């Protein structure tokens, strides 16, 4: 499942990140394989989305979220 498909109320775990560049950026931000994520907010125009990663909250654009593979817990 992709991060961009995550729904409210679902809790998921990060599996893999498809793009090399994005991977490093997200790793640095703590979005690592095994880390727990949850959808918190969606911006008024549907994009970007705000997710809880472990203990904090970050946002990213939908097309970048689509490159993150997750699995539901």
């Amino acid at each position, binding site marked *: 499942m992709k991060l961009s498909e995550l729904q409210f109320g679902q809790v998921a775990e990060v599996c893999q990140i498809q793009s090399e560049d994005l991977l490093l950026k997200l790793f640095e*931000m703590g979005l*690592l394989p095994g880390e727990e994520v949850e959808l918190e907010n969606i911006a008024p125009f549907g994009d970007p989305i705000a997710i809880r990663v472990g203990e904090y909250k*970050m946002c990213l654009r939908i097309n970048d979220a689509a490159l993150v593979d997750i699995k539901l817990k």
Partner: protein
Amino acid sequence: MVGNPNSGKTSLFNALTGLNQKVSNFPGTTVDKKTGSCRLSPLVKAQLIDLPGTYSLYPKSADELVTYEMLRNKTETGSPDIVLFIADASNLKRNLLLMTQVADLGIPVILALNMMDVAARRGIFYNIELLSAELGIPVIPINARQKKGISELKTFLVDTANYQKKTFFSLDALQPAFLNEVCEITDKKNRYAALQFAINARELLTPKADAIRDCFIKYQFDAHKFQETEVLKRYHTIDQAVRISRKEKGQTKLRSITQQADKILTHRIWGLVIFLSLLFFVFQAIFSWSSYPMQWVEDGFYISSHWIQQTMPAGILNDLIVSGILAGLSGVMVFLPQIIILFAFIAILEDVGYMARVGFIMDRIMRPFGMNGKSIVPLISGMACAVPSIMASRSIENKKERLITILVIPLMSCSARLPVYTLLIGMLVPEDMRWGPFNLHGIVLMFMYLIGFVAVLISAFIFQLFIKTREKNYFIMELPGYKLPVLSNMLITLYEKGKAFVWGAGKIIVAVSVILWALASFGPNDTMQHIETKYLQLATDPANTHPIEELAAMKDAEKLQNSYAGQFGHWMEPVIRPLGFDWKIGIALITSLAAREVFVGTMSTIYSVGSDIGDLQSIRVKMRNEINPATGNPVFSMATVLSLMIFYAFALQCMSTISVVHEETRSWKWTFIQFAYLTALAYISSWVIFNAFS
């Protein structure tokens, strides 16, 4: 000082240095360098350098190479004795990544653990001794916003015996020969520092970068894979340390205030409504609250220049000081109240954490225009003054998005345009005329602001089609938890911003004012002398019916018209005649280069309004009566007035802006492109409007 964004670094820096801080640039970059001094003990004073908040040593842009240039460069006198690392306890794991990287550069590190109260509220507690033991570096708990733990921190820093070095990530997996060669090429002793630099510099266009790339190929070193592994391994180490020292009590997944607030503040409908209302409120506040302080500033300058004029011996110096320097200064200072109020609101919203949400909400709209959610704050600030706004665009990492933001900011109607609009709109529409329940004057004014904003969008859209960049643009941002604002932070920020404005814009405006004063006061040959003599004779002539003030005003008008500036106005008239302007307007266009609002003052002088210089009605009356000698028609027809308004809406008549843009883009090319496109836009629009309405 090093740390993640939103870790409380600014609060700690402020707590340690107070007002003993200075903001400048890292040489050759537009990266902010904040330095300050801090008294650690009666005998020891420390110099503190605040580096930009970042998540890891792998920089997002070439500019951020500077962050660890600073940290690594052992040969420079400015190399640090110790790194004060600040981490957010409610988010510790991610915060520590950077810390382990910095430590591996071979500099002693001390960890200031901040926001333990926030962590506690979430049921997370850390055992400081255990954490320190596991990490192998000293850990001091602090609360930067409440200024707790600061003295303990200072005490600890004074004792250099506490300075410890620690390595977290082992480079043993790499071939020693490879590492040696990297050290040689990059001329660094610390192997991690060398490798770091090499990885980051490999994309540059220098011979060193070539050597680095060759070396990487030779040893089959995959930089990407390495970085990936490095980050994972570091987190693994951090994980262990954190897990051992961490205790969770009570509910750790409580619905916090932040979550509740965000549900509303980022809501599809309410989020936007709240944002727009807030915007409206802020601008209402700016314009109504600033009117008194602006009056004081104006009065203050009026009184002082009057005093100087009377007290000093009459002559060139007197004139220079009063009409050149003081006039220029008052033009700058009069907008200070508006700028302070705007930045006070921005500072508070930033401190609270709301600004991140603004970027979040607006990102989708900004993107088709080649800009970023973070562009919205500089754009909005541009409605007060472009100068600090352009500087504020540094927060945008992507080069293209940042450039486009800078290029279009001057189109936002700044405060200096307001006096011009007010004067000109009043020529078309009486100030109290109503259209239904609305004030017509106000509506036209809003319309001018709207035109500016539309021009921003169109220009940005066109630019983003043409500007190419290799960088992929991301909008990956932390949304920090909401916090109560700290007054001292806001005051310090205001002081810095105010200083930047007064110093940055002020310097230019005063310099340009003096130059323009000279151009307007001196004329070719002896014309000026003749005019002086003529009016001196007129004043003593018994047949003279004009009162002294009127004579003085008429003399000033005639002097201006015959000065170098006046000559220039005549000379450029053919160029501006298609826009409906005459040479007198031409003079005002030139003087407006110092600052747009100078237009009003120049019009006053040209139309010899004299002592009624603040009275717009007097100016308007004179302007309306002005007849064009060639056509016999009024100069200020509706077509001309509209054309003039549009010209001021678009033209880049502000030397300060040009100067700041050059500073921020470090490129004459883009500074010139901006000036060219804005001038072209102003000229063409004016021409179209003038012809449409004549």
